[in-house]
């Protein structure tokens, strides 16, 4: 399973594809993102890559565990989905990551 993510052109904020055919279907909350089958993700990736006046930097994020949406492959995606971890201690965040509480 995969998620589709991008940055909104006008303000650069991180968005997650949550269905629909226009930008209002995207969400800033990764928890509300649509889990996509590989083929659907690939098709949507191509479609949204071409819609450059709406989003930039579109890419697919693979999910390791399709049931819980938690075990991401990369810390980077965890940080991108949840925002900067400034204010938490590194230890807290490491434990959070190990527990897999991405959302």
């Amino acid at each position, binding site marked *: 399973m995969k998620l589709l993510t991008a*940055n909104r*052109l*006008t*303000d*650069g*904020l*991180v968005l997650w594809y949550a269905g629909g055919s226009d930008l209002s279907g995207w969400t800033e909350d990764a928890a509300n993102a649509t889990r996509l089958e590989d083929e659907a993700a690939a098709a949507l990736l191509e479609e949204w890559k071409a819609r*450059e*006046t709406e989003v*930039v*930097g579109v890419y697919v994020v693979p999910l390791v565990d399709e049931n819980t949406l938690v075990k*991401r*492959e*990369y*810390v*980077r995606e965890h*940080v*991108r989905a949840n*925002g*900067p*971890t*400034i204010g*938490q*201690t*590194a*230890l807290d*965040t*490491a*434990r959070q990551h190990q527990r897999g509480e991405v959302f």
Partner: protein
Amino acid sequence: MYQYDQFDHAMVAARNAEFKDQVARRLSGELSEDQFKPLRLMNGLYLQLHAYMLRIAVPYGVLSSRQMRTFAHIARTYDRDFGHFTTRQNIQFNWIKLADTPQILEELAAVEMHAIQTSGNCIRNTTTDQFAGAAKDELDDPRPWAELIRQWSTFHPEFTFLPRKFKIAITGATRDRAAIRVHDIGLQLTANGFDVYVGGGMGRTPHLGHLIKSGVPGEKLLSYLEAALRVYNRYGRRDNIYKARIKILVSALGPQEYARQVEEEWATLDQAQIDAPHAEIARIKSFFPQPNYADKAFDAAAIERAKAADPGFARWMRNNTLAHRRDDHVSVTISLKPTGMPPGDASSAQMDAMADAADAFGYGELRVSHEQNVILPHVAKADLYELYRQLDQNGLSSANVGKITDMIACPGLDYCSLANARAIPLAQDISNRFADEGLTDKIGDLQIKISGCINACGHHHVGHIGILGVDKQGEEFYQILLGGRADEKAALGVITGKGLSAEAVPAALERLVNLYLELRTDETERFIDTVGRLGREAFAGALHEPA
């Protein structure tokens, strides 16, 4: 400080108008992202992990109080109420909207600022000693020369598309506070002209710069730099981004051969067409006079009484002030490293408070250091206690300059799209671990520098203790380097021991520091000197918990 003339104003206004049009065309779809990306980067606008980031140039780290207030305004109005001072003496705002950028650049232009030369493969903002024009150990003021280089390099048609970015640093003091040996070109002002170091740099293949020429007269500086850049531009590798910096070329040719080619090129140049006339150098120097120093009598006994009554002030005096060229003044460093906070960050209120302090006590002048602190270069000793109290009311009185908690840390994975690991939260953990001021003072001078990836924006190669974040199968790990330094005895640190998890690093550093305290000859032997005396291997075991 330098004041824009009609050419500067016209140049920045034209660039802003051009970028405003480019942004409009991007938003309408007339420009694709591929077409727009190099244009926005040439104006300091990056797309980072969470949002757009705008990097604004602070030429050679010199700021007026008015300019600092403009940063505060930008933070409040267009960002999330804070900014991040960088290791290039610039400032970055992390949450800028593309649509707002033309307006921000117009507001910056109104106070003679811009974001030119903060990105791209051009000659970047020249950096220098944050105490330039003030330090007691200074031979000559590097700021006019940095300004001369700014005027020569900005939009230089031959050097706008170099093989890679190019960074120049200048110092005019006996102590190197500008880290000149880890720059593409490092310039040391001496009584006989400039000593020119070439081929330094950090990143994935760190090198120290080589002295290729001594005594270049100031009047010939630009033509010599032009020759040095021309050789690099001609032969620097454009086929491999990882081998494109000048350090690789100098290493491949050998410093002597590189120097020979520069000499040969220099001889072919029409130097009179390149070098600034004496009158122009004099004109630029006239913008950097000494302040009209206030003749404030100071009462040394009163300062001693204040120190005795207020230990925080005594500590701040000891750690955050530097000898000034005038006996009745000092330079003050405002630490942006309070316990547990992100290094280099300042809120809009703190920026305003620093501007107020500069107006009240520092002749309206501020500096940014590559260590991510802010400096008031000229403060009358008579004003010190009042300044301290004012800073203290705004959370700006941390008395840890040069100490273990005065860390450099890049934005790391919390903001940067290139990073592999976080740097700021680790710095926060280390800061909390060493929050005891008595312990910090006992440890003495110790520089920790943290980078979230091999690009080394956090200068980990030249930290007494360097920390490099790496990605190990999707987890953050940190390699520890020992023995680096960026001063006049510049050296590159060496990876010591195995990589550590984030949670293991603070305790490992505590063991390392405790071992240093045991092994040092006395309290005058700094950490870096003990590592130099005993060798880094003597400390490797301390990084790992005993089995």
